[in-house]
């Protein structure tokens, strides 16, 4: 029995949790402060990293300069070592909002190219992963022979195969969306398999015995017990899977010097020293990743709520 200690959690500070203290005691405040600190650090870093070049410029032009000048100029260089946040945002605003979405200069266009293969690969990969997990849980020979390899395959740098997959599939006539989706499929399918095997095995012996007392069929045990028990595990691995799918699609765009997609933007930026372009592509990718994970989380919350799981 847990007695009074468990029930009465003392509050450390203020007598009544006000709105402000909730803000600081909760997560919002700290996250905000940490984020602001990061932006500040970034600005400082930009000034520091870009200043050597700026010194040269000042020297060549032979002008008097103050610290204010230095800061202003370092934060607005054309090809800075580290672009300032506002430069990246301006570039993103230009390439996302102002350019027509179907133009090759639009980040929306490139994002869509990457996103479509991410989603296709993720969908196929998740489905495959679930099927394989069901096979591993129900077929003894698969469990013994395949499972160690599924686990071992996690330790292999799968992304290294990406360029080869793209080139080989390209040489048999598959280009564009499919090869990248294959890489995403491959990457997302392992976490889903492992998570689902865990999930399908998560019902405890008592619950399984209960199904036995009803002399439930394997099929019934699956749908009424194993599948529902595995749902939380499924979503956890889906979140990992969709994030890694995006990485797969981006890396898949590198080897052929692909013409479209966020990976291609990164590569082109690094060829021509366009740091602002690299950073804006990177930010867009980060934004998409966060969005995708948030989307899966949202679906997770809705599904779990429907299933009556305590939030």
């Amino acid at each position, binding site marked *: *029995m*847990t*007695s*009074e*200690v468990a*029930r*009465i*959690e*003392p*509050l450390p500070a203020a*007598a*009544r*949790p006000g709105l402000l203290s909730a803000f600081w005691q909760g997560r919002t405040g700290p996250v905000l402060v940490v984020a602001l600190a990061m932006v500040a650090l970034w600005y400082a870093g930009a000034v520091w990293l870009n200043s050597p070049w700026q010194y040269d410029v000042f020297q060549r032009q032979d002008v008097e300069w103050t610290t204010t000048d230095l800061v202003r100029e370092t934060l607005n260089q054309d090809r800075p070592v580290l672009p300032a946040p506002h430069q990246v945002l301006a570039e993103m605003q230009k390439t996302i909002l102002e350019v027509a979405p179907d133009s090759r200069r639009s980040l929306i266009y490139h994002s869509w190219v990457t996103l479509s293969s991410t989603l296709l690969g993720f969908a196929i990969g998740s489905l495959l992963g679930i099927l394989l997990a069901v096979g591993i849980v129900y077929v003894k020979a698969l469990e013994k022979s395949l499972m160690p390899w599924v686990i071992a395959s996690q330790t292999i740098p799968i992304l290294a195969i990406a360029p080869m997959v793209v080139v080989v599939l390209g040489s048999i006539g598959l280009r564009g969306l499919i090869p990248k989706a294959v890489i995403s499929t491959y990457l997302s399918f392992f976490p889903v398999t492992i998570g689902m095997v865990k999930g399908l095995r998560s019902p405890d012996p008592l619950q399984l015995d209960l199904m036995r007392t009803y002399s439930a069929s394997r099929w019934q045990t699956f749908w009424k017990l194993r599948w529902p028990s595995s749902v939380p595990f499924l979503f956890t691995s889906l979140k990992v899977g969709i994030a890694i799918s995006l990485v797969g699609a981006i890396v898949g765009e590198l080897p052929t010097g692909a013409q479209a997609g966020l990976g291609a933007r990164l590569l082109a930026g690094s060829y021509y020293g366009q740091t602002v372009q690299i950073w804006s592509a990177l930010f867009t990718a980060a934004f998409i990743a966060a969005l995708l994970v948030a989307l899966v989380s949202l679906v997770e919350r809705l599904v779990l709520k429907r299933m009556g799981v305590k939030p």
Partner: protein
Amino acid sequence: MARNGVERAVDVRDLSLTFQTADGPVYALSQVNLEVKAGDFVSFIGPSGCGKTTLMRVIADLEQPTGGNITVNGVSPQEARLARAYGYVFQAPALYPWRSIERNVALPLEIMGLGREERRERARKYLELVNLTGFDKKYPWQLSGGMQQRASIARALCFDPDLLLMDEPFGALDEIVRDHLNEQLLQLWDKTGKTVVFVTHSIPEAVFLSTHIVVMSPRPGRIIDIIESPLPRERPLDIRESPEFLEVAQRVREGLRAGHSYDE
């Protein structure tokens, strides 16, 4: 029996403790007065929510009172804690899974900076005291629940504190093991002459073990009655069938009934 010439192991005056929660204040303890003499075996008994564990945690300086005074061994609970004046036994054994039984028992000694040889010697000695000789090299998971709890008692005793605080130590064990451990605990108390403060919600356990039984009641947490047991220090298990025992148990039960409104 009392060291440092302090007769009162615990002295509580008008103690109260109020928790602030989102649903408003909870009066965990209200106007509690209690005196525990050195060498006593005192049990707190009451329904859940009566503040018995909270009172014990205040004594241990794990919780701060919001009113009143309390001294442990004549000093404040914090000073007593810093002087390592008490050993605490929790509801669960709370043994560290990565340490062998011997090293678990020696943990407080390590923290207090004793040498390796002395640690080992003391750990062995107290493991013998709780009848766990030969289990020193085992890991916690290799022991039964009762044995684990005995090891945690050895851990509480091994630095030889004057005061032993036990918070429902046998609550999670089955009755047969519990009877056995109760008997052993009494022998241990007799041998060592420690002061024991014991929290329980079992009437027979409280009556069997204690020299004084503190009956408590919830909302607000307060003391209803303090019963001094007429039973002798020597107590075989079958004392529980004696009329004296049943009489004390009856008083405890009445006290509980008087303080408890059965509104749950």
